[in-house]
């Protein structure tokens, strides 16, 4: 039985999650779905637990900084169905003023560290995250390196070095 998941997934979401608006696009044979950020946990839960789809693997969570756009950030989720060998991309816009989105770490445990990385690099908060700390940068660092307004060589004095006695 060959199923066309590019049609099946939007159809199943429409059937099972009523009153949920989303858009879709297809590029190079890959399906992308655009959601509102308040729906993201609901959608992820459905996609993982649906017996036909079974998106068990959260491959990556990352973000895009659009710099001058109204909704400045986009959080991107790459999820994969091991059963169907199908890859799906989810996107949700995040505003700079209210710079947070609900955490999906209750759905996929691996999202815990992936969201920490997004928080470290872009400064996007994740509501209900169990342990939202910095991943790579030191705890006391105050900036977000992958934002477009962060200079390549860093901000002088923001990272400390050990003292050199002479």
């Amino acid at each position: 039985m060959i199923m066309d998941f590019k049609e099946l997934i939007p159809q199943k979401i429409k059937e099972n999650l009523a009153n949920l608006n989303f858009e879709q696009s297809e590029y190079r044979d890959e399906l992308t779905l655009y959601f509102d950020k308040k729906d993201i946990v609901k959608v992820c839960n459905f996609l993982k637990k649906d017996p036909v789809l079974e998106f068990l693997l959260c491959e990556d969570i990352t973000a895009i900084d659009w710099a001058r756009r109204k909704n400045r950030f986009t959080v991107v989720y790459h999820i994969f169905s091991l059963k169907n060998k199908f890859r799906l991309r989810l996107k949700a816009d995040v505003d700079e003023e209210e710079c947070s989105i609900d955490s999906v770490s209750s759905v996929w445990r691996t999202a815990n560290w992936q969201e920490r990385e997004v928080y470290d690099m872009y400064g996007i908060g994740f509501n209900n995250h169990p342990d939202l700390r910095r991943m790579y940068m030191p705890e006391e660092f105050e900036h977000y390196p992958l934002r477009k307004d962060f200079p390549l060589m860093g901000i002088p004095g923001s990272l400390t070095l050990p003292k050199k006695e002479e």
Partner: protein
Amino acid sequence: MGLEAKLNNDNFFTTKIDALIEWSRKNSVWPMPMGISCCAIEMMAVGDPKYDIARFGSEVMRFTPRQSDMMIVAGTVTYKMAHVVRKIYDQMPDPKWVIAMGACTSSGGMYRSYNVVQGIDQFLPVDVYLAGCPPRPDNLLNALIQIQEKIGRTKARDFQDRPLPELPVLQNN
């Protein structure tokens, strides 16, 4: 040194304490292999029979800083790692020497970026800078010979009565 010939005749010889200490010191430089990234692979090659750092008396790689004389910083030092490198350097007993191995440690190398220290001489006193990305094992041997020459120019009393550094007591990490 051909000392055996002397021992056959009179069973004693005269020398300066300085010369003796400097000779023994420079032929037993125990390295602290601070292998942080890919330069460490070339540093390992130096220990194998082809290049054989044992010819220079430095085959005893000590993984505790308290037993080593020379730190080979081999690899990219990030700002986060710099504190660790410095902590290990501070634990080494005097006299001690530092080789900055490779482009990254000497100048930041190709990592011209916010997270990499642009040269470890910003927080460590470096004795020999070593060019290359990564440097060939022969080049590291050359750096060791440079260190040995530098040790040969020191006097034993240069390191006498040197105060111990006051290290901060860290509560965590």
